[in-house]
Structures are given as structure tokens and as C-alpha cells.
């Protein structure tokens, strides 16, 4: 599965393959963990090392708290 996680991270999966792999990753804590660690490695190699402190989870938590949803017509660049 981790090879697929690596390909998912890099956008290398064909569209037919993407949805089932993403579903598997989303439902498997080990695969989600791998996905985030691959990101941590890449950022570290680019000189952007950060603490492993749940930053992504806090973003996702706030999105849930605000019940963020896709809004057709919303301009993300508007002040």
C-alpha cells in the first residue's frame, strides 16, 4: 500500500486508481500517517523542517468547526 501512498502524494495515480486508493488511505491510520511523513521528509529536504505537532489536524478541525463547504460563486480572492 505504501507505494500507492507515495504515488498518491506525487499525483502519479491514474484517475481510475485515485479514488479507491484515496479511500483506502483515508480509512487507514497507518497510510494517513505515511502520507504525512512523506510530506515532512520532502519539506525537510527543501529546508523547511517543522515540528510534527498536528498542524494539519488543527486546520481540518477548524474547517469542521466552521462547517466549511464548497460554495459555487465564492471568490477566494475577495477581501
Amino acid at each position, binding site marked *: 500500500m*505504501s*507505494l500507492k501512498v*507515495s*504515488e*498518491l502524494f*506525487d*499525483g*502519479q*495515480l491514474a*484517475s481510475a486508481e*485515485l*479514488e479507491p486508493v*484515496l*479511500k483506502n*488511505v*483515508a480509512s487507514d*491510520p*497507518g497510510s*494517513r*500517517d*505515511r*502520507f*504525512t*511523513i*512523506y*510530506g*515532512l*521528509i*520532502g*519539506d*525537510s*529536504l*527543501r*529546508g*523547511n*523542517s*517543522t*515540528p*510534527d*505537532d*498536528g*498542524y*494539519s*489536524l488543527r*486546520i*481540518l478541525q*477548524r*474547517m469542521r468547526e*466552521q462547517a*466549511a*463547504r*464548497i*460554495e*459555487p*460563486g*465564492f*471568490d*477566494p*480572492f475577495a*477581501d
Partner: protein
Amino acid sequence: MENADPDIELVRLAQSGDAHAFEALVVKYQRRIARHVARYVRRAVDVEDLVQDTFIRAYRGLSAFRGDSAFYSWLYRIATNVAITAVKREPMVLLGDSAPEERIDAFEPGVSDGDDPERHVMAGQIADAVQRALARLQPDLAAALMLYEVEGRSYPEIARMLEIPLGTVRTRIFRAREFIAKRLEPVLGSQRSRRW
């Protein structure tokens, strides 16, 4: 360099209502967006707040993304806009006493204000572990990973440069990541389900 957007399929899936697809994009880009936003604001807490605003605005406006540019470029522009708008609103609070161009060189990833020494130490430990693992990594694996992650080369470009099949590029990058990940795990500790 080839310009195909590697995120386009994930974005399409997110646009069709798959929340996990957008979550994957959050996980993938949150650190890069934080680094960018930290050029505009001083305190780590403000950086994090603006990063959250950026992703929320991107999600709300996702149907407006047409793929005219890469998703990351679009996200980067939203982050710039969010940061500039915030600084205009509260310049003294967010900027402190230095101009943005002065802070770029001083920026320490993830610890832009140095308020929390533990965060600084943890970031340093991660960087050290990655560099130590990289030094021990088989050279052909390291070459593939560095070309992709640092040089920004695409898989097909790496295949041509290293004269290897595309499938070998995939497995080398994967094996390189696994090698480093296994050596990083003792530093990270058991955080399963606490990252995404």
C-alpha cells in the same frame, strides 16, 4: 521542465465532493503555505491562523479553480491575498517592528517568533534525522528523491535524466522515502492518527 499539475486529479475529486481529497491537499501543502505566510506576519500563532484562513477560503472557492494554473500556484496566491489583507487590517499587531523583507532571512520554519523553544528543538531533530538518513541512503535512491523533491523534476524527466524506466523512478522514490521514514520514526514517536 514539464508543467502538468500533479494535483489536478485530487482537485477534481475534491470539487466533486470528496472531502478526503481536499484533506490530502491540506496535508501536502500546509508547511509550504505556512512558510510563505510567515514572510508577512511575525508570530507563529498568527501564521497558523492565516494558514487556516487560506485553506478555508480555498475550499469554499474550490469550484472557481479552473486549472488555468497549477493548484499550488492558485493556493499560494490565495495565501498571499489573505496575508496582505490581514496585515492591512492590523499592521502593528501582525508585523511587529520589522518589515516583511527583513523577516524572510530570519524566518525559522514553524517557529517564526521563537516563542516555543520545544518546537524549535523538535524541528531541528527532524531535520537532523532526515539529513542523517539521506547520508546513508543508497546513491541511486537518493538521486531520484532529490531530483523530485528538491529540484522539482517530474517523474518522466527523472526517468530520462537517470536513463531508467518510469516504474523504476516510482519505486526508487518510494524506497528512498521508506528508508528515511523508518529512521525518522524514533524521532517522531507514535503519533498515528494525530497527523491526519
